[in-house]
């Protein structure tokens, strides 16, 4: 192999590595786009909620978000070790019980947690709304979730109309959530 050929091969390998790194960066940026869901909802836009299908915690099988099209969904990300989630859980259960007959579903996504701890949490707070499990937290980047709890209101078409970072415990937050739910439930 001549020195010229070695040089060419070296240059080819270097260009290949740079292209690979560029593709990885582009992929990382594209994956991180989901984080705009909350920001877009805050700007008054109605971004489509990223789809997912996750293992159920409250029964066997999976639950896919698209299966809830036609219903208003209060999507709540939580974990059993999260203290504000404990304060918020009874309110979400109450919201679900009061509005389930009107086409509302509260859907809890337990993430970065032990399944057993999550089930104990659900029993302790007598949660009856559907619960799914995302132990590795795979869908959190899609929604831009960086902490717990975070809550999203989805309209009947599966678009995000409201987003909350932190527990929906303050009276004004609950009023805002309930107003968003009412708007989404309105025919």
């Amino acid at each position, binding site marked *: *192999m001549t020195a010229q050929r*070695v040089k060419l091969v070296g240059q080819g*390998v270097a260009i290949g590595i740079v292209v690979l790194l560029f593709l990885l960066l582009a992929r990382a940026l594209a994956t991180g786009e989901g984080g705009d869901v909350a920001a877009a909802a805050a700007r008054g836009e109605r971004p489509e909620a990223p789809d997912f299908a996750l293992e159920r915690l409250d029964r066997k099988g999976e639950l896919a978000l698209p299966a809830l099209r036609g219903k208003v969904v209060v999507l709540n990300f939580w974990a059993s070790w999260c203290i504000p989630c404990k304060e918020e859980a009874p309110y979400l259960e109450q919201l679900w019980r009061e509005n389930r007959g009107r086409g509302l579903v509260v859907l809890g996504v337990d993430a970065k947690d032990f399944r057993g701890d999550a089930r104990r949490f659900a029993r302790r707070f007598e949660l009856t709304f559907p619960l799914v499990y995302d132990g590795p937290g795979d869908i959190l980047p899609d929604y831009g979730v960086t902490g717990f709890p975070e809550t999203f209101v989805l309209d009947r078409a599966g678009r995000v109309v409201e987003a909350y970072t932190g527990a929906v415990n303050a009276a004004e937050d609950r009023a805002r959530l309930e107003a968003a739910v009412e708007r989404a439930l309105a025919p």
Partner: protein
Amino acid sequence: MTRVVVAAAIALLAATAPPLLAAEPPRAADLEAELVCPVCETTLDQSNAPVAERMKLFIRERIAAGDSEQEIKDALVAQFGPGVLATPPKGGFGLLAWLVPIVALLAGAIATAVLVRSWAHRREEEPEPEAPIEPELDRRVDEALARYDS
């Protein structure tokens, strides 16, 4: 007879002595250094996040229950995914993370060796040609030197 007694003694010792080759129970500290908190993404021994504390408790419970290091890791991967392992698994897709640096190192070493060899050959094959002195220039230099000497 003696042989029978010795064999029986050895068999008795083997049956009653603690198995020398039995695996040591895993140490919590070792596991905490090899597993990652899924929230703060540092190793468990560096984290005091609630989920990290819960995982440390889980590790201690499983060690007390007699689980091996691998069983404990597998149980945590089943809950939190392979991201809890501080080092990628030595199988499947994770194997790439181990192989790629080795392959890159080997490729670099081979490329360096080939380059060095190629340069060495070029030097041997193509010695620097001595620049011929043109007769005219040679004559003028001689004249200049002669003038300088006189």
